[in-house]
């Protein structure tokens, strides 16, 4: 697989994971005895437990009454099940959730579109110095945002961008371009054979026609990858939110920090809040995940 960059891995790793294990495994004969399979299974289950332990305690706590969250009963099921923590958390987080949605969706779409156009040029419509431009863009993906945060805030204030959702969309669009460009560049490099582009060029098709007629129809899985990636990282972002927004116009991560940062923390409500905050990204992973991975594979095979 293409190993050139971090994000390449993101896209194509997902694809390759879905691939079936090599058929030619000499079945059990290759040293994989029944006992070793059992050991493997036990280990896998143990690790499953490790991953799920926090989920268990968060889930049960979110249904507890406030008197039931003492040290002694922390790991026991609720004495009485209640939805109050969920209601309380939802009341606090609801406006933040709306803002996060109205922010993550456009930011993901716009940066994906720009990334797709860039990726196409860098992979299949190259020009002298394209590599330098690529490196120039790539570096933007790795910078610690602290290094740009203060002047960024000043810039936005000077441009008089409305604080809140618009500032965050703008910031996530710009700083999301590198990774989207990267994913699309690797995607086009693997799925679109050069011959197709060449023959289109011979037929006199320009960049725009080639992009619209040939590339875009093949880009579905690429878009799923970048959209999921961008949606998740925009949704989960805290740093930009902290620096560029306030309580009354910030996204849900800010809301959750406020909900669970009080002096008298309501554990049940903050656990319910953590779950509510995580739901949209989890849904995206669950619903789109299969299609996203499978689609990428199909694209690769079609090429």
């Amino acid at each position, binding site marked *: 697989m293409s190993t050139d960059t971090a994000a390449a*891995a993101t896209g194509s790793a997902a694809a390759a994971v879905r*691939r079936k294990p090599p058929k030619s495994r000499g079945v059990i004969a290759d040293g994989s005895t029944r006992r070793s399979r059992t050991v493997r299974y036990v280990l896998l289950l143990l690790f499953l437990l490790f991953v799920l332990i926090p989920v268990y305690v968060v889930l049960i706590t979110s249904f507890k009454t406030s008197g039931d969250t003492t040290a002694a009963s922390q*790991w026991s099921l609720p004495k009485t099940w209640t939805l109050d923590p969920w209601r309380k958390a939802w009341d606090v987080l609801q406006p933040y959730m709306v803002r996060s949605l109205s922010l993550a969706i456009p930011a993901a779409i716009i940066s994906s579109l720009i990334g797709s156009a860039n990726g196409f040029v860098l992979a299949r419509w190259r020009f002298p110095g394209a590599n330098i431009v690529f490196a120039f863009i*790539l570096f933007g993906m790795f*910078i*610690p945002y602290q290094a*740009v945060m203060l002047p960024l805030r000043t810039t936005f204030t000077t441009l008089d961008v409305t604080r809140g959702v618009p500032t965050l969309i703008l910031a996530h669009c710009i700083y999301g371009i590198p990774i989207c460009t990267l994913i699309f560049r690797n995607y086009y490099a693997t799925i679109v054979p050069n011959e197709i582009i060449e023959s289109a060029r011979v037929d006199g098709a320009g960049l725009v026609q080639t992009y619209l007629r040939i590339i875009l129809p093949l880009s579905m899985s690429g878009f799923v990858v970048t959209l999921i990636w961008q949606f998740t990282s925009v949704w989960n972002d805290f740093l930009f939110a902290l620096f560029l927004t306030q309580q009354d116009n910030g996204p849900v991560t800010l809301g959750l920090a406020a909900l669970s940062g009080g002096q008298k923390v309501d554990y049940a409500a903050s656990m319910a809040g*953590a779950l509510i905050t995580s739901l949209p990204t989890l849904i995206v992973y669950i619903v789109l995940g299969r299609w996203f991975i499978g689609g990428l594979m199909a694209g690769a095979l079609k090429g």
Partner: protein
Amino acid sequence: MHGRIRTWGPGALVLLPTVLLLGYFVYGLIAWSFNTSLTDRHTARKGPASYVGFENYGHLFGEDRFLNSLKNLGVLTVAFIVGTLIFGLLWALLLEKGVPGESIFRSIYLFPMAISMIASGVVWGWLLNPSQGADARGLNRLFEILHLHFLENPWWTAGSRWTTMASIALPAVWQLSGYIMALFLAGFRGIPPELREAARVDGASEFKLYRHVLFPQLSPIALSALIILGHMSLKLFDLIYAITGPNQFRTEVPAIYMWNTLLRSDMAKSAAIAIVLLAVVAVLVIPYIAYTVRQENEE
């Protein structure tokens, strides 16, 4: 000449907005921060500031608190990378040959990645409660229930820098091991079956097969994983903010220290911290980008 511009001109034009945007918002703003870090702008007051050269950097590196945050960052990065690589590789090895229900394991191992560091920090901050014995809470309580008393510990609140930062790394390992597993799993599946067959025909043992045939194939992936994890760890902010609060000496890293410095509106000093952080990331990433681009050229 004219013809060549016709061919590649449109491509360059498509990239132009991106180059301009990133030129300003990445490189321009970094230059701006660097410029601020060379001044004596130590308050929020607007107006002219004078240049003091690298004085702010000199002060930082003479400061116990900043050196502490750098050491914390180093230990955190090592603990996080080693932990994540071990779990990720182990899970990939366990799943590599295919087991019934593989997709379920895979999805569950992977799911913590979808959760924001703030949400997981809220949860883990609560799980990593330092109380022990009869008053134990969180994971210590679980150990108490399971009679695993020897596992109870004060987590990040006491003990050496290593135990402190390893406790902070634990939630991060929990979140990203699944991702590293996916990378390695993809690597294993990408190895042509013929290679395995050939090795087996040669009579290589299972151990030798992995050691000499499969693992070398994975080294590019391991490098990618290293870079991803490394730069993630260097930027880590949300998790520490949520678990320990922003003003905790024991767990302070430069990203957090910068936030604390901003509280007193010391622009020059916080810019200097940010630039040091950037320099650390750059040392890791620039050779990698150069290597990547050069390899592309050779292809």
